[in-house]
């Protein structure tokens, strides 16, 4: 049996150190070039941001998915006292990406909160942060499986699906051909292997027709693209993983992930 003395990366855990860097000072102008990766999605232009958000320049829409806000608190309610800092860390990250792109519309693509009680019990300072970020823009909270009842006491609207400019935004992807679908739910991550070494990162998964968003929340894990759970959604020969690097996106064809 082959057991490496040291695993290359713990299996179910992603290194997203960069996500916890302190908030950047407000930039003089949004830097939408260089770090992001421009891709075509069902005929439209989309930018994958290495902070884990998708930006559609034509409609000035920013999409984030699986924030899982108040995850620490949700666990604490069940007796596991995880650090109570995840909500603030996720919101600061969201603030950075909003400053960078200054969107007109924000779509949070479901599992916005880790459990049903999350949005109602969220401490006031975080609520104020969200109000601040929503000022001057529209905000849609798509319902997810963790928070199917919608949000309470927050700016914007709760919806089940969004149709915009020929694209469909929903939390759980629908099996079968579904051109223009943008979904979350699965927390895609990909493992790149080269010469017996491997690195695992969250990623945007897309075959050009459909896109599944990486999870944005700082306490969210990842599910490897090789998992059977992704099979119904992509033709693997066309699938590209846009991996989140330290400060840029690395795009790797699915077939080339393992060298």
């Amino acid at each position, binding site marked *: *049996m082959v057991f490496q003395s040291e695993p290359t990366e713990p299996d179910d855990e992603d290194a997203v150190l960069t996500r916890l860097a302190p908030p950047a000072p407000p930039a003089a102008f949004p830097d939408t070039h260089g770090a992001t990766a421009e891709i075509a999605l069902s005929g439209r232009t989309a930018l994958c941001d290495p902070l884990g958000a998708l930006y559609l320049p034509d409609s000035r829409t920013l999409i984030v998915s699986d924030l899982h806000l108040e995850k620490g608190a949700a666990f604490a309610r069940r007796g596991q006292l995880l650090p109570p800092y995840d909500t603030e860390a996720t919101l600061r990250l969201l603030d950075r990406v909003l400053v960078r792109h200054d969107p007109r519309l924000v779509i949070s693509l479901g599992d916005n909160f880790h459990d049903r009680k999350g949005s109602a019990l969220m401490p006031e300072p975080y609520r104020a942060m969200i109000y601040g970020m929503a000022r001057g823009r529209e905000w849609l909270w798509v319902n997810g499986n963790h928070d199917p009842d919608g949000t309470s006491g927050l700016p914007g609207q709760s919806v089940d699906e969004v149709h915009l400019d020929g694209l469909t935004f929903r939390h759980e992807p629908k099996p079968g051909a579904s051109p223009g679908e943008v979904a979350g739910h699965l927390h895609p991550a990909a493992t790149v292997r080269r010469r017996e070494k491997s*690195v695992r990162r969250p990623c945007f998964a897309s075959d050009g027709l459909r896109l599944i968003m990486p999870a944005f929340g700082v306490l969210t894990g990842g599910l490897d693209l090789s998992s059977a759970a992704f099979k119904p959604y992509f033709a693997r020969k066309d699938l*590209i993983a846009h991996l989140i690097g330290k400060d840029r996106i690395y795009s790797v064809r699915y077939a080339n992930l393992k060298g």
Partner: protein
Amino acid sequence: MSKADSPSRDEVLLPPVFQRWFADRGWQPRAHQLALLERAGRGESTLLIAPTGAGKTLAGFLPALTDLTRRGRLPPGSAFQGVHTLYISPLKALAVDIERNLARPVADMALPITIENRTGDTPVSKRQRQKLKPPDILLTTPEQVALLLASKDADRFFRDLRYVVLDELHSLVTSKRGHLLSLGLARLRTLAPAMQTIGLSATVADPAELCRWLVGQAPGEARQAGLVTVDGGARPIITILGTEERVPWSGHSARYAMRDVYAVLKDFRTTLIFVNTRSQAELIFQELWTVNDDSLPIALHHGSLDVSQRRKVEAAMAENRLRAVVATSTLDLGIDWGDVDLVIHVGAPKGASRLAQRIGRANHRMDEPSRAILVPANRFEVMECQAALDANYVGAQDTPPVGEGALDVLAQHVLGMACAAPFDADLLYAEVTSAAPYARLERHHFDRIVDFVATGGYALRAYERYARIRRNKDGLWRISHPDVAQQYRLNIGTIIESPMLNVRMVKRNARGSLGRGGASLGKVEEYFLESLVQGDTFLFSGKVLRFEGIRENECLVSQAYHLDPKIPAYAGGKFPLSTYLAEGVRAMLSDPARWSALHEQVRDWLSLQKEKSVLPGRADLLIETFPRGNRHFMVLYPFEGRLAHQTLGMLLTRRLERAGAKPLGFVATDYALAVWGLEDMSAMVRGRKLNLAALMEEDMLGDDLESWLAESFMLKRTFRNCAVIAGLIERRHPGKEKSGRQVTVSADLIYDVLRAHEPDHILLEATRRDAAAGLLDIGRLGDMLKRIKGHITHRALDQISPLAVPIMLEIGREPVAGEAQDALLAEAADDLIAEAMG
């Protein structure tokens, strides 16, 4: 050492029925058995250090057996009687084995004593019955003791406790399991103040440490249990395998030696072949069968194999039906293994004491010498084996120290105590610090742990309403809900295993799709499988298997019909080279007069090194720099073990980065460290752009260490273990396996969040302490940096030196860490770009 002085003393100590039992068998009670009995009679706790085969177990139980015999059987209808004696062993199998071994004398003498075991495998109904009607002697494990102590009726169950017999104490005390057990003993002393401990141990470096561990400590004085030592019997006969084959430069397989090993084991009745890792066990087993022309019964035994398979091997071994068993450390401990007359040790033993204990497995009769043969897997190991061999003859000991009690273990214990009964913090602090590993625990650390158990211990006091324990008006801490006790019970223990998947054999049917389940072969780590793609072949359970895929929580494999697995069997040793053996290897290297004991090829190799470069001096650090390919290499030979070298490698690359050497990576072995980069480091030293003395300054353990720790993936792994033991993260539960989505919460992510927002959190402190002591070997690195100050020898070479060859061969086998991760991603992304550019 105590000796029996007169037969009359036997009569006083031993009830007549025991005297007759010994006499009927033509036996004499041994001096140490009587010594233990005598001390027990005086109310003393005692440590017995004796080699295998000295009748240690009977010695440990005699005080309990005689005391119970004098008490006599309790008449029916007597009041509740708590357990009289606890026997605690690190292995479930050992507890079961001891029950069998004790049953015989107890039956022979018709003693009025009930003996039962209690392990994780004991049915619930039996466990409940044991609580209502405890046996006189309960054979169990540290985890079960913790569970019993955390139950509401612990007081009643343990109040009559007289003896606690601790088997294989040397292996128990050095781990977190030992820390938890020491806290359990402290509680047992509170519940049953007359309780005495009896520790049974193999030879250790510092017996006084174990003697302290066995008894309650008080502020300002070091109390000790008494010590009885039995000298080893005949000196073992140890040799290094002679071979005509070429000894490899590097690697751990020892494949080259298998014909020679096979030839040797044909001359013995039963051979135990010890290896350091499971992968080695698999490989050696397979290699032996390829040369097994006589079809000798040779079996495989390691911890990942399916239990039923292991039991079969154990049974066959006990019945002397096997000629050889290839085994890992699961057998290091004292299960009775029939008549083993030879131990072969493949790979370097890494520690002199470990070697002595393993060799002790051969031949249980003390007066005959054990036979052992060492098989080094590569050239450095030849020297290490020779050093270990010298050490075993001079009786050197290098067992690890007990260490300071871990804080995560304390957190688990505090919650357990709250589950048993409401506690007063002052009293619990006094009890905890009576346990030797926690004797120096400061009150503020204790209070922070209590706070952690209650609400997570966060500066942002967000979880008061979710508190697990609360202090009431009476000043006592109690659990806030019965669910907390349930949660505690499900998450007890200090052994953290990485997630494992069951390996199941399947067949492909005619249409090429996979059939339903075949035999289960055992378990493998999930991280290993993640690097496999369908069709990859690997060795497991003595077979070459083809990886087919993962279905739910099982790894599906099929029989592969080729001999060479595609995924190479690689694994460094689990144990770092001990400081003692490292010193031995350095001494041997620097002294050509001692090379005569070494294999001729190794002598030639060292002579060549002397000619082409220089040999590392005994107290010096040799650093070589040379170009190779389009890279420049720096190879250091500290001989301080892989862990310390890894830490040094991380720190050196940071410093070389700042010095402008543009380092690209490094690799560490037990003996050496190689760093490579883009700049010519020889030229940098010549041009005074790189100062090696400054590079190796002790101050690298300051700021550089801090900032490296901040992003170290190794620290994250330590944190995960601490978080699980301390109860911050629950272990996986049956029925909660990964389904379509991730359900577990990632310890790495929690670590990142906690570090960013509360870097002084008590669990991060626990993590840093653990890492400094264990994983990073910082203490050892610091000693080395001190030692080599002013003793650095640098050689700028035109090409690779002979001594550098082994480590250069390791390059490419190590995991990627830190900065190199993005480089690897970029390389993969470039493939796409190249494809796009056509």
